[in-house]
């Protein structure tokens, strides 16, 4: 007799919690550093098609909520492709435990590697038709700098986070984090390898908080 009575209460509580998560939002602006000059491709000893014009993305920030959150059993697979001799996109934020694939969309070899303490790997040389797509699982939180052993100018970043609540700002620095749990946390804004800004936040169910990182 107890079980049927208990179930509707649990369902109502879950609904309330889900509604609260969906409604709790932080938005704001992060002051971004100036864009670096676009890289110059070293073409001294090779024939480069596409004329060696490297597209560059302006800086972005990764804003994330730091706290103790449970890790989901299955995280979606992410991709960081190489196209026109550049990483697309050059900054990827993932939760620790995420598998990232590195598809080669160029008609030449790429050789992606990282010597960052958070993840050391070397995928070797691979073509666009390589199957399965070369991938790595990023288990340890931290910044992973990606390079290509063949194309010296290529740089990519993967920011591995111990939280499911993160977002990447637009190129103006605007961000919006949704579906957050109520509670007391630290909100961080990763700007570059040397700069991470932070502020304590008190999140209440159903509210929208505006927070800037000057």
């Amino acid at each position: 007799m107890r079980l049927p009575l208990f179930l509707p209460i649990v369902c109502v509580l879950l609904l309330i919690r889900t509604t609260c998560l969906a409604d709790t939002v932080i938005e704001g602006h992060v002051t971004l550093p100036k864009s670096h000059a676009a890289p110059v491709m070293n073409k001294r000893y090779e024939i480069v098609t596409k004329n060696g014009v490297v597209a560059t993305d302006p800086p972005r920030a990764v804003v994330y909520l730091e706290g103790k959150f449970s890790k989901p059993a299955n995280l979606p697979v992410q991709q960081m492709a190489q196209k026109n001799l550049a990483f697309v996109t050059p900054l990827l934020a993932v939760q620790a435990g995420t598998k990232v694939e590195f598809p080669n969309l160029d008609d030449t070899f790429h050789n992606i590697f990282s010597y960052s303490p958070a993840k050391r790997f070397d995928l070797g040389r691979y073509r666009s038709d390589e199957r399965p797509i070369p991938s790595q699982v990023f288990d340890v939180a931290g910044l992973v700098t990606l390079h290509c052993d063949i194309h010296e100018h290529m740089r990519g970043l993967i920011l591995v986070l111990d939280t499911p609540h993160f977002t990447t700002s637009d190129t103006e620095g605007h961000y919006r984090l949704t579906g957050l749990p109520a509670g007391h946390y630290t909100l961080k804004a990763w700007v570059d390898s040397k700069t991470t800004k932070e502020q304590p936040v008190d999140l209440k169910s159903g509210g929208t908080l505006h927070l800037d990182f000057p």
Partner: protein
Amino acid sequence: MKIARTFLYLLLAATVEARAQSIIEQLDNALTFSAFDGSCRVRLSGLVDLEAYHLEQPAPALIDTDRHALFNPRLSLFLDAQFGSHVYAFAQSRVDRGFDPSDSGGRMRLDEYAVRVTPWDDGRFNVQAGKFSTVVGNWAPRHDSWENPFINAPLPYENPTGVWDSMVPEETYDLLQWSHVNATDKPQDVYADKYLRNPIIWGPSYATGMSVFGALGKFDYAAEIKNSALSSRPEAWNITDVGFSHPTYSGRLGWRPDEMWKFGISASVGPYLMPSAASTVPPGHGFGDYREILLGQDIRFAWHHFQLWAEFFEVRFDIPGIAHADTFSYYIEGRYQITPQFFAALRWNQQLFGSIRNDDNELQRWGRDAARIDIALGYRFTEYTQLKLQYSLLREDPAQNRYNNLFAVQFTLRF
């Protein structure tokens, strides 16, 4: 002790990854300049190489020292500039103890400079003028210390033959003397005149001239006209030192069935004598009449963590009174990435000499056949620092079983 201490300090610095990387990343950003809304971009980069050799005398290849140990530091500065999407320029300047490892004093050179125009976006046609490495073969594009898994060059690029570019032999006996093929030659005599002798290709051959090259589907092509032959010494590469009156013509055709395989055939023909040899050539001839003719074949294979390269060269020198002196040289080289940071490489090199008729009308080899095995181990501490260790065993003139051991270590900082 000083060398060992320097290496130790550098190793320690290299292992402090975060700080060292941060400094180099800052430097990298600081050395990239942009103007006119990004349409003009310039980047300065470089390599600092600290090399040490432990060797047996006579010093092998083009190493110039009479000691058993040699410290050879080198700073290479590169400039890459992109102007719009169709014009690219580059330059390389070096501060070292000589183009080839030596114990002489420090000096500074401008090894490369060139301007390239690429009219079409797909790379089908490029034209380049300046002083730059040869289009022949597949070693030149990977000859710098970061790309080369070894510390030295393959044998065809550094093994001195008996051919001199400063004068011609009066008779066959002279050529055989210069080649040191006689059993009576003492080891110290063999290398006393080493710098007068020429290899079949002198390093990457940064001669001055012009080239056209491009890629058309699975094929690529390159042709160049340069002021001096592939065997010519670094002093002959400058347009100011040797004019353009006797050019060398070289070319390469490449075929890429897929990204894994690359095949190429090369050819080069041009006078190898320096203008200073003019007074020694037979009457009625000029120094430009005696040519080096080279045919080359190259292969490259790459898949995942394994890479393989091979080059084969058949070379003929026109020599007054002797007609032709032929030699064949090749190497096969493999590199395997054992872990993300640790790699190993193995190279087998050989040079074989043809026969000429000596003054007694007997056939005799005009050079000392040589075989060399190179073994190297490398470790990349960071994206910017690398350490390589190499052992080479050279066996010259199999009949006399002459061996030479060489140990080398090289620390490279890239920025």
